[in-house]
C-alpha cells in the first residue's frame, strides 16, 4: 500500500513540476522544476527496482545535464530576457495539439488490457542491480557500450569546437 501512495505522490510531483517548467517565465525556475521532475522519475525507477538506473539518472540528468543548462542560462543571462509574445492563436493551437496528443496516447493505453507489473513466473529481484546490469552491459552489449564512448568523445569534440570564440 505504501508503494501505491508513493507512486501517486511521485507522479503528482513529476506532472506538476513538469507543468511548472513549461509555464515558468524565468528559465532558471524552469530548470529547477525540471530537476524536481527528474528526481520524481528517479523515484519511479527505484520503485520499479531499477536502482542502478535511478542513480545514473540523478547523476546524469540532475547532476550533469541540468547543471549544464543552468550554466548556459547564466552565461547567456537569459533570466533577464523578456518573455516572448505569443498570440492567442498559437497558444490555442499548441494547447490543442499537445492535449490531443496526450488524450490519444492515454486512450491508446486505455484500450489495452491491464498488464500486471509483476509476472510471478519470471520475477527476479536482482534485475536492476548494478552487478547484474554491469554484467549484461559488459558482455552482451560490449560493442554498443564502447561505441557509446566514442559517441561521447565526438560529442565532446563537437561541443568544444562549436563553442570556440572565433567561430563566427
Amino acid at each position, binding site marked *: 500500500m505504501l508503494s501505491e501512495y508513493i507512486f501517486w505522490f511521485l507522479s503528482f510531483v513529476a506532472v506538476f513540476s513538469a507543468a511548472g517548467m513549461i509555464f515558468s517565465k524565468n528559465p532558471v525556475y524552469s530548470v529547477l522544476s525540471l530537476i524536481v521532475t527528474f528526481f520524481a522519475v528517479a523515484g519511479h525507477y527505484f520503485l520499479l527496482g531499477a536502482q542502478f538506473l535511478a542513480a545514473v539518472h540523478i547523476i546524469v540528468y540532475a547532476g550533469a545535464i541540468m547543471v549544464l543548462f543552468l550554466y548556459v542560462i547564466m552565461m547567456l543571462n537569459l533570466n533577464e530576457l523578456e518573455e516572448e509574445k505569443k498570440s492567442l492563436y*498559437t497558444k490555442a*493551437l*499548441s494547447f490543442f*495539439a*499537445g492535449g*490531443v*496528443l496526450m488524450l*490519444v*496516447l492515454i486512450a*491508446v493505453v486505455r484500450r489495452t488490457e491491464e498488464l500486471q507489473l509483476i509476472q510471478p513466473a519470471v520475477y527476479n529481484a536482482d534485475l536492476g542491480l548494478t552487478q547484474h546490469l554491469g554484467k549484461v552491459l559488459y558482455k552482451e552489449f560490449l560493442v554498443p557500450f564502447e561505441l557509446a564512448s566514442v559517441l561521447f568523445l565526438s560529442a565532446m569534440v563537437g561541443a568544444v569546437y562549436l563553442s570556440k570564440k572565433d567561430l563566427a
Partner: protein
Amino acid sequence: MEKLVTLVPLFPLAGFLYIIFFGKGFSKGFIGTLASSTILLSFIVSVLVFTTQMHGAHPAVVKVFDWITAGSFKVDFSFLVDPLSSIYLLFITGVGFLIHVYSTGYMHDDEGFSRFMAYLNLFVFFMLILVLGDSYVTMFVGWEGVGVCSFMLIGFWYKDMKNNDAAKKAFIVNRIGDLGLIIGMCLLFAYTGTLKFDDLFISGSDISGIPGGVATAIGISLFIGAMGKSAQIPLHTWLPDAMAGPTPVSALIHAATMVTAGIYMVARSSELYAFNEVASQVIVWAGILTSILGATIALTQNDIKKVLAYSTVSQLGLMFVALGMGAYSTAVFHVITHAFFKALLFLGSGSVIHGMGGEQDIRRMGGLKKHMPVTHLTFLIGTIAIAGVFPFAGFFSKDQIVAVAFEENKIVFILSLIVSACTAFYMFRLYFLTFHGKFRGTHEQEHHLHESPKSMTIPLVILAALSVVGGFIGLPHAVGEEMGMHWHWLDHFLQDAVVMPSMHMTMGTELLLMVIATVVALSSIAYAWSIYKKRGVLADEDKDMKSSAQKLLYNKYWIDEIYDTIIRKPVDRISDFFGKFMEPKLIDGLVEGTGSLTKATGGIFRMLQSGSLSLYIFVFIIGLIAILLSL
C-alpha cells in the same frame, strides 16, 4: 586449277597496297609498270581459269576464309568459278590491262599519278570480287567497293568542287540502288535462308519455294540495285556527271566494267527472273525507256564525253531489254562487245582530249583526222562497231537483242530499232564534227595538236581489233552456218551458268532482221554524213538553240532539275524543319518542359518550408496523432 582464281584479285590488291604505302619514292615509270603488270598477271591467271572452264570443268567454289556467321546465316568469303564469272574475269582483266597501259601515258603529267594507278588497281580488285563472289553478300562487297573507287576516281581532281559534287552524286545515287539490293538480299534470305549462288541457283531448289508476290518484290528490289549501278531510269543521272573523272576512268569504270555489274547481277540471278513475269517486264520497260532517253539526249550533246556517256546509258538500256526478255547470254554478249568498242571510243576521246590540251567541246574541234591518224582510224572503227555495221562486234550483239525483241514484244522491237538509228546518227555526228571539217579551236590548241604517245595508241589499236572481231564469239545461226564457224559459241559456253531462252527463229527471219538492222544503221549513217560532212553543218551554240525539242534534249529532259526540286530540296527542307523547329522546340521542349514543371511544382511546395520551427513541430505532432488514430 580453280584454286588459282584466288590470285586473280590478289594481284591488283597487292599493287594497290604497295603503291599506297611504299610508292612514294619510286618513279612514275616504275609505278605505271607495276600497276599494269599486276593486272597483266591477273589476266594470265584468268586465261588459265577460263580455259579450264572452256574445256568443261565443273563450276567450283573456292573458299578463302570464314566470313560472317550469325545463327543460320553463314557466308564464307569464297569465289565461284563458272563460265559466267570466268568470262567476266577475262574481259575485266583484259580491258583493265589495256586501260592501265593507256593511263600510264594519259596521266603521265598529272601530279597524282601514283595515286591514280593505285585507285585503278583497287577498282580492278573490287570488280573482280564482284564477279567472283559466290554469294550476294560477297558480290555486294565488290559492288560497293567499285562504287567507292568510282567515287574516288570521279573526284580525282578534288580541287574542283564540280568534280567532287559529281563524285558525291554518283556515290549517293548508287547507294539508293544499293539499298534496293540490300532489301532484295534480306527478302531472299528471309524466304530461302541462304544467299549463296550455288544453294540458290545451281542446286536450284531453294528459290522455287518463294511465293510469287515475294519473288516479284525480290526481283524488283535487286533490279533497283542494278538500276543504280548500271544507270537505268530513274537512277541514271549520275553517269553523265561521272565524266568529270579522268578519261581512262570513264572508259574502264563508266563504260566497260562497273556499269555492267547490274547486267552481271541480273544474269547471275537469271533463275530468279526467268519465271518472274512482272519483274522481267519492269526490266524490259526500264531498259527500253532508258535506252531511248539516252539515245535522244546524246543527239544534242556537244561534250565529247557526254555523248559517249549517254550512249553508254542507252546501250546499257538495251542490255536490260535483253535481260528482261530472258536472253541473259545475249546481254552478256553485248556487255563484252560493248566493253571493247566503248572502251575504245572513250580512250579515243581521251586521246583527242589529250591532244587538244583538255578541250572536250566538239564545237571547238574538227579536222583532227590529219593530226591524229591512229586515233582517227581506231575511233572510226569504234564508231562503226557501235553503230552496228556488219561484221563489226556491235552488229552481232545488238542484232541478237533486236531479234529477241522481235520475238517477244513488237513495240520494244520498234523502239530498239529507233535506238539503233539514233545511235548510228549521234555517233557519226560526233565522228564527223571531231575529225572532219575545219579546225575550230584556238591557235594555241592547233599548235599543240599531236598524236598521242605509244602507250596510248597501242591499247587503242588492240581494242580496235577486238571491236572488229569481238562479235564472232556470238555469231548468229544464219551467219555461223554459212561461214562454217562455231555459231552461238557464247550461248553454249554460258548455258550452265544462266538460263537459256527457248528461241525458235527460222534462218529466214534471222537474216531478214539482220538486213533490217543494217539498213537502219546505214541509212542513219548516211543521214549524218549528209548533214555534217556534206553540208558541213555545225552544232549550235548554247544561245542559238531555238526549238523546244532541242532544248529539252540538250538539257537532258531537265531530269536533274526535277530531282533537285522533288527530292533534294524537300529533304533539305524537312531536315531544316527538324533542326530549326522539331528538335529544339518540340522534343527538347517536352524534355525541358518536364524539368520546368518539376521546378514549378517544387516552387509551390517550397512555400511550406517557412523556416518556422513551431510550425514544423505542430505539423509533425498532428501527423503523429493522425497515425495513432489510424492505428
